[in-house]
Each structure stands twice: as C-alpha cells, then as structure tokens.
C-alpha cells in the first residue's frame, strides 16, 4: 500500500494538476480560490477530474464533481475518495 499523501502534499498535488490542466501558473492558485475566479468552467472541470482520477487511481463520483466550487472542495473531495479507496482492502490482499 503506497504512503497516504499528507494534507499539504495532497493540496499541492491537486493545485499542480489544476495548473497543468488549465495551463496556468500554480502560484496563481490558492486553496481558497473558487473555480469561478480561476475561470474554470464545467468542461475544464471534467478535464481536471480526469487528471486527478488518473493521478490517484481513483473514481470520483459524478455527484461529487457537481458540488465542487473551490480548490478546497476538490482537495477534500479527492481526500475523501482516496481514503475510502484505501480502506477497501482488495480481495486476496489481506
């Protein structure tokens, strides 16, 4: 089982992915930035979610995506799914 990302690491990683996907400098993104402030529309949002799913090997549910309004929402959403995923022990591993 890989190391669980630390809180700050996770935020930084998510911000890095948003920056890369949106082609904007990471310094312009803070944990409290809203998606509106970052000019992230719904289509950009699904690109970001796709990149996050790839990066963390998770599945973010559609209803979770629809409620994301800020970078913090995304970070917490990812954290929730990552934790849930890590708690589910794959069959045969235990």
């Amino acid at each position, binding site marked *: 089982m890989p190391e669980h990302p630390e809180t700050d690491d996770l935020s930084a990683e998510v911000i890095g992915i948003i920056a890369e996907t*949106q*082609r904007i400098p990471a310094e312009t993104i803070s944990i409290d930035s809203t998606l509106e402030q970052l000019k992230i529309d719904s*289509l950009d949002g*699904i*690109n970001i*979610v*796709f990149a996050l*799913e*790839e990066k963390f090997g998770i599945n973010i549910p559609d209803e979770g995506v629809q409620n994301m309004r800020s970078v913090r929402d995304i970070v917490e959403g990812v954290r929730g799914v990552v934790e849930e995923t890590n708690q589910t022990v794959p069959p045969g591993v235990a």
Partner: protein
Amino acid sequence: MNRVAVTGLGLVCALGNTVPECWNRLAAGETGIAQLKDPGNPPYKFQKGAEARSFNASDHFTERDLIMLERFAQLATVAAREAVAQSGLSFNGDLADKSAVITGSSIGGQFTEEEGYLRLYKDGNPRIAPLTIPRTMANAGASRISFEFGIHGPAYTVSTACSSSNHALGQAFWLVRSGQATAALAGGSEAVFSEGLLRAWEAMRVVSPDVCRPFSTDRKGLTLGEGGGMLVLENWERAKARGATILGEIVGFGMSSDAYHITQPSSDGPAKAMLWALQDAGRSAADIDYINAHGTGTLANDVTESEAIRRIFPNHSTSLLVSSTKSMHGHTLGAAGAIEAIATILALNHGIVPPTVNCTSVDPACGLDVVPNTPRLADLEFAMSNTFAFGGLNAALIMRRA
C-alpha cells in the same frame, strides 16, 4: 432569387497554408503529394500522401483551444479565418442572425476516437479522455467557426463522404439565393492521416501504391490528402453595396444518388447531378468551359465520370477542359468539394486551368481533354466542380467568373 457572390476564400492543404500559396502551386502544376511522414509498422501498402506538413496548429491556436479542437476542426477554422478576413465581413447585428455556417466532414475527429479505443481495448483502461465527444463530433468545426465569428444563424455539418463539402456549399448557396441567409461560411475539412483510417483505406484497395494519376492509362488509385477549405458566400447586391471584391459567383447546384452500389460508381447518377446543376443555373451544357473533375485516379471513377461528362456535354470533344487537381492536393474526402471549388473559382479568375499532373498517357477510354501535366491559359466564364461519394451520392456546383 438572389445572386450569390463569393467574397472570401480560405485554404489549407498539402500545397500550403493560404490561398495564394496553394494557388501558385496549383497554377504551376506542382504536386503536394509526398512520401508519408510515418510509413506505418508494418509499412502501409501505399507510401504516398498529401499531408499538410507546414500546418502547425500552435501557430493558430492557444493550448487551451487545442484541448477542444481536433485537427480536422483546426483546418476548417484556419481556412474560415482566411476567408472571412478576405471578405472583410464582420458578423454584427442582423448579419449575425442572417448568416449560416455549413461544413462538410466525412469522418470527424478520428485521432481522438482512435486514442480512446487504444486505451479501452488495448490497454484495458475504461477511463477515456473526457473531451472525446466534443473533439470527435463531426460538427466541431462548424461550431467553432460559428462561435469564433459570432454567427447565430443556421449552422450544421453535412457528412456524405467525398461529397460532404460540395453538398455543404450547395446548401449554403441555396440558402443565400433564396434569401433565407444573407451570407454563409461554407466548405469543409478532413484530417485523414490516422493509423486506423489509413489501415481502413488500405483494406479498401483503392489507394495508389504510386502517386495519383487521374485519367492516365497507368492510374492505380487515389492518394489521400488532408486539408480544409472555406468560402464566404454573400448576397450579391449586399456585397456590391458594401464595395466588396467579388471573386466569383455561384450559379447552380445539383445533387443525385446512384441508388445502385455502395462503392461501385455509375455514370447515371453523376450525369443527373451535372444535368440538374445546369438546370438549376438555367444554363446549357455548352456554356461550361471547364470542369474540375472528381477525378480520383481510381480505375472505376475516371472512366465512369468521363462517360457521364461525355453524355451531358456536347462540347466535350471541342471546347471543354477537364482536370483533376487531386493529382496535386490529393483526395481530401470531406474537404474535396470545398478545396476544388476554390481551385475552380481561382481558375475562372486567373484564366488558368490547373492541370492534371502525373498523367503519363491519357486513357482513351476517358476521351476528354484533361489538361495533362501543363497548366493551360484559357478564357473561362463558367465552370463546374464535381464530387461523387462512396454510397453513390453525387454533387455538382457551377460557378461563374465575376
């Protein structure tokens, strides 16, 4: 009924990234067909293609734009920009609502689709790139063009294989002629050099292992090409009133279906399309000075097209010139009608017929003056551009010198 002026042209293909670049080469009989950049592994049975090599997407679009735009939509958009710039039109006020965008594309965004399939079926990864749908949709070019220029009238895409953009132009011509639209941006684009598509064409056994030699006895098939062509059509009186430079006039359009065979051409369908285009224009066959033929370079097309032309045009053995510019820009499928309409308008304008190059010896079974190898100076007033698609769908567009 309104007269329909052509006030802008835009073109990207193997011959260049602008209309003047492409025309200089067409008028000089220079081919854009070259060795394929990627020979394939195992190598494709054909190694020649008309790739738009000097087209560099990042010269024209931001990285963010490119997330949304597949190559075929990029080609349509860049061609549309050139055409609109030449026309001098701004789509403001009423004109925004009274203008149309009609594009042709035979396959849409093939690269994205293939990437998706690779992940899905080869890598067993069920997670597909999230913008696969908007990137692959065949109307991606039409949509991009309409929002880039703020055009709010009818906007759609026609997909009739190799006739796609000729059908698009015909529809746009009728919209402007009837007054339903004041102006229209019409044409089409295609990006064919994806591995899956090249293998599919290989399997059809219609692509030449050699270059494309239309109407030549030793022709061995077509050569694929990529590109985009867009035209600005405009109500003639409005164009005149605003002092626009009128590059040509569209005067007639005809379309027909062979209702015969999915790939085997027939001469009856093409003959009907040509005849109906003449009737639509109110012209007789003898008025036509030049035909930009479908002329794919396949054994079947060139002989049946020639037969249809000889049947409809009594002047075929005396004054009618026919050439296939596919010998220079390749067969661009859904973009063919648009690229060839542009070539035809420029031929009328300059009084130069672009030749059929790579013609070793004209097939006597074709029996036409196909302007082999050398451009011809000619006083032209009316010209026709033909496209005949797999599925037996035919279109003929008639243009007049301005």
